[in-house]
């Protein structure tokens, strides 16, 4: 187990270095940051000087070495545009993104799971077909269109929910901001969380449905029926329990993907999180922010994958044997 963990850890570091190199190389091609830093009156000489001062004329490997060395100490430099340390900026935006991601994951689970169980148990009913059709639209329309349509209906036409932003936030412990404790914060969460969670909700629902359909046909359930257990006990005590492991695994893995997809949702709803920061950085060629963001996403994914791997090993004895032997 320990050997397995260490091996995965080394691989994770390797992955991070590759990601760092890819993102770093990319940024050299995205655009000229100098143009974003100065006004229109700046002369070519002043621009050249600035480029020299920023170290943009050094060889690529020198710049990369500088980058990795600092990143290891959580120093991602100063944002070209905002002129604040990138680490601080990301720290101040992280709560917004994590809160949105978690709420939408919970939404996806709370809605997707019952719908999946129902459609799995009663695949032929009208309601099941309706659920299936509804859930399919969730993956048949692009996220940005869903978001804009939701704003159009619920903010502009009905006036029920805020059209943008996080509402009022409360600061906890001096660094974590949350919108979960105020009314405007909560109502601001609804539309973005639905927009972001719809895809995952569909995924979970279809996954649960498929697992349920399979499990209900297994001998093990047939025996349970033969033993005369109530269908309630069979459905929830045996069938659902068996489907939960893959569902939780997939949901866990999806959290990273939710965080990445929040770029789109945050842009549509002007949600002040990391995704919005990243997209603005892309538009302004704010290299330090872009580099830090990509590394952070890679880091989150690696950590989540790592945890899921370990959980797998802990839960499934077959993998444990294979993992220890390999």
């Amino acid at each position: 187990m320990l050997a397995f963990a260490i091996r995965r850890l080394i691989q994770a570091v390797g992955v991070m270095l590759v990601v760092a190199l890819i993102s770093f190389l990319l940024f050299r091609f995205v655009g000229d940051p100098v143009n974003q830093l100065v006004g229109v009156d700046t002369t070519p000489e002043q621009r050249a000087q600035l480029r020299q001062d920023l170290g943009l004329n050094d060889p690529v490997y020198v710049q990369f070495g500088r980058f990795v060395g600092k990143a290891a100490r959580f120093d991602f430099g100063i944002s070209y545009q905002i002129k604040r340390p990138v680490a601080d900026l990301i720290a101040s935006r992280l709560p917004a993104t994590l809160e949105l991601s978690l709420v939408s994951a919970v939404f996806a689970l709370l809605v997707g799971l019952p719908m999946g169980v129902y459609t799995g148990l009663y695949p032929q009913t009208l309601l099941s077909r309706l659920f299936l059709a509804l859930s399919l639209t969730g993956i048949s329309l692009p996220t940005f269109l869903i978001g804009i349509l939701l704003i159009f209906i619920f903010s502009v036409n009905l006036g029920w929910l805020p059209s943008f932003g996080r509402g009022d936030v409360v600061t906890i412990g001096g660094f974590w901001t949350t919108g979960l404790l105020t009314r405007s914060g909560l109502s601001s969460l609804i539309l973005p969380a639905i927009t972001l969670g719809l895809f995952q909700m569909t995924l979970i629902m279809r996954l649960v449905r498929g697992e349920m359909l399979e499990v209900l046909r297994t001998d093990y359930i047939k025996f349970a029926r033969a033993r005369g257990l109530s269908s309630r006990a069979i459905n929830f005590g045996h069938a659902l329990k068996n489907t939960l492991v893959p569902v939780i695994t997939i949901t866990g893995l999806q959290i990273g993907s939710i965080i990445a997809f929040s770029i789109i949702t945050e842009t549509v709803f002007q949600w002040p999180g990391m995704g919005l920061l990243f997209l603005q950085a892309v538009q302004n060629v704010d290299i330090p922010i872009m580099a830090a963001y990509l590394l952070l996403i890679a880091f989150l994914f690696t950590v989540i994958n790592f945890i899921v791997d370990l959980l797998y090993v802990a839960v499934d004895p077959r993998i444990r044997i294979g993992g220890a032997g390999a």
Partner: protein
Amino acid sequence: MHRQTLFSRMVGGAARAAVIVGALAAATLAAQAEGKTLRFAFQGTLNALDPYSLNETFTLGMLGNVYEGLTKRDKDLKIIPGLAESWETIDPLHWRFHLRKNVTFSNGDAFNADDVLFSAERVRADGSDLKTRIPADSEWKKVDDYTVDVTLKTPNPILFAEWDTWYIMDKEWAEKEGATKPVSAKDTNPGPAAYKANGTGPFTIESHEPGVKTVFKRRDGYWGEKLIDTNLDGVVFTPIASDSTRVAALLSGDVDLIEPVPVQDVDRVNKDPNTAALTGPELRAIFLNMNQIRDELPTSNIKGKNPFKDPNVRKAFYQAIDIEAIDKRVMRGLATPIPLLIAPQLYSAPDLKRWPYDPEAAKKLLTDAGYPDGFTVGMDCPNDRYVNDEQICQAVVSMLAKIGVKVNLNAQPKAKYFAKVLAPGGYDNDFSLLGWTPSSFDSWNVFVSLATCRDATGKGGPFNLGGYCNPKVDELAKQIVVETDVDKRNQMVHDAYKILLDDTSHIPLHQQSLAWGKRKNLDIVQRSDDQVLFYWAKLN
């Protein structure tokens, strides 16, 4: 308020009236309790708060609520005294400024001549993006606490034209906060001026989270209460980049003021009973550049020569473009065709008119120039800089197709576009779209920026993307800047514009309009320099 809207849809007439009255009462009470706070959303972000970091309209406008210059501009952009009460020229090379007394910065420090001298040094220091606000070789001397003398090396009739956005900073505060140097990009440890502001203006900045939210508060003890007209206690500024979300925020009442309203949504905003669009001419001129400095256009199928070197080809392009159609359909009437590279409010002459739209004549000019079947050329265009910039370029492409010219459009975000077409990208453009506002509101700025000869590195007219070059224009520009006789100067300006028009140096398109959206209960002054000034805003 949202809930009331919902109820009013659900209940009948009498009940509805009662609910609305109740709602109004509740709203009034809430307003009294909270004070009047303006909620404002703009498409871009407000980043550094150092007033010398970025020479950009929006940033300078927002800081104009907090800081002030020696001069100010009134609602019609007329220069009026600001922190300088009056000034006089002793001779063309010597100016004297009398400073206003009893002015304090928001931290309580008194304003005096030391602050002016400090600001004059700071704005010219390394890292400042506003170095051109005052001549680099001018000498500044304190006569007494409220008198400053400026000595120039060459006469300059428009010396203080841009001083309304050269904001005076507090020397004591800057020294205490370690902000004596302007914040520039290369600073690894930006000073507090990047985060804080301390000006003499009517507002202070209470909190600033770049890209998220900036909170302005009204301050006590402002010297110029007579000049302003506002009942606001504060302003909450949020950037909203997405056009549809910004409009939705206004329509749903989540904000009171947005800028800009996309031109296609102006009608919608006006139709809504609670919102209105505020439109007016902007001082920016939009025009097309044709590269005349290259010997061969890399994006063209014509090899060995450059068609744009022939004035007839340039005029053919000009006359093939139906600017009226663009302004009617793409700009929805919110643009005015212009004959020169400057907004008519800043300069116009009755005899300087646009060449008429005439595709027949254009086709003939092209044939006479030796291109009966037209040719191919690539066009560079930004897609997030000017109002409907990409759509304008697309319309130009289809209009030129009708005279046989095949244009390959390359529309990009402004970061990539400017990196390519400006000096750092080696002016890599054959045919491109650009907008320009002369920061001094004066024609001289137009000539030296856009129309004087340049070499490949940008020596000369730095924003002359097409590399147009006529020594007569250069000569006139040199004389205009030092000419103090108004009539003579105007004549020279006229002559220069006439040459540009006859040479078809560029293709002027139009002056775009400002379009702000506001809730009906907000009154605000819209100045044509596009600065959003809260001190002329009232919430009723």
